[in-house]
């Protein structure tokens, strides 16, 4: 590929911005904070990712999706590294990611340990249904005003 010589780290980050999280497709793997580093040396690209939860099955899919997305951009020499330290934290979710989660109906994480408000009607009258939910990163809550259940992105 002739473009290989012009690959920059910023370009790779921008491509990764378009790789959606397989479970929550409104946010990208970059918004989720699992991409921890990108380095480019000639036509060699190295991407470092970190797991959200140690057993999250989406991590394998994320790795494949990153490989596929970068291959489509002509990157054939990709090294995908996994690191577990420092451990992933929801503090790494981007502001854009948090806003998109809420638009999608998932309350973003709060340091207080519970959702700030219902993502459907914005009421603050909410209660916990279960500490766990449909993926390792979420818990189940419900709004006592509009009565709709919703997912809350666990704060860790």
């Amino acid at each position, binding site marked *: 590929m002739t473009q290989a010589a012009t690959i920059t780290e910023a370009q790779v980050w921008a491509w990764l911005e378009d790789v959606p999280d397989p479970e929550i497709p409104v946010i990208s793997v970059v918004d989720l904070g699992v991409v921890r580093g990108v380095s480019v040396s000639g036509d060699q690209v190295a991407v470092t990712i970190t797991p959200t939860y*140690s057993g999250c099955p989406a991590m394998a899919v994320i790795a494949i999706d990153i490989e596929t997305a970068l291959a489509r951009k002509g990157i054939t020499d990709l090294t995908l590294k996994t690191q577990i*330290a420092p*451990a992933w934290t929801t503090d790494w979710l981007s502001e854009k990611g948090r806003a998109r989660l809420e638009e999608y109906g998932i309350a973003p994480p709060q340091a207080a340990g519970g959702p700030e408000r219902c993502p459907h009607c914005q009421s603050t009258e909410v209660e916990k249904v*279960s500490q766990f939910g449909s993926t390792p990163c979420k818990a189940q809550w419900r709004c006592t005003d509009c009565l709709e259940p919703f997912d809350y992105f*666990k704060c860790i």
Partner: protein
Amino acid sequence: MDPLFAFLLRQGDNALVLGHRTSEWCGAAPALEEDIALANTALDLIGQTQLWLGYAAEVEGAGRSANDLAFLRDVYDFRNLLMLEVPNQDFGRTLMRQFLFDAFQVPWLTALCASSDQRVAEIAAKSLKEATYHLDRSSETVIALGDGTEDSNRRMQGALDYLWPYTGEMFADDEVDRAMQAAGVAPLPSDMRERWDTSVRETMQAACLTLPEGDFAHSGGRSGVRHTEHLGHMLATMQVLQRSYPGASW
């Protein structure tokens, strides 16, 4: 056996055996939310298993993988606590066991974050976040069920009485523990006793449950010399695919 390898097997086997037991609830829990919670807890534990046994396999240096260690070892090669291999029995005993283990894991993993072995410290820091979350739920559930109906209180007391003689094994130091302490890899398990006693006492009090008085402690799981008869049955189920179709993958 190299003490670091033995230590890592203990870490990994505890997570694996409890993770498998917990996964047995998948599709069979008393309520959908609990089914999901148990499956997620099991998933965290299996994830932690991959980290601990992955490192164990590297330290052993015999060409085995985390999967080999999980699926191709027999009962006497396992180094988990006996408490984690006994059958689930019912939801009450499952959650009581989870609590008794979580109340140990949280201070234990906290201490391991300062390990002289960087990999141990990293895996501990990752696992600690999940263990802290598990402890929140298991302590809340033990209190809710203990301080619940007459039937739930009776079952939780029965679970505590049954599991109690298995708890002492967590704190029984041996030569592997002393070698790890000398190397700065881990504190002695007995150092966790006071903190565990306090948190268990407080939780049982809030749960309207009575702490058993006996201090007899079963042992043999951490050394592998005397597992219960239950582990073999569990492994027969867990390992059947790799035993029947060696090397199968997807």
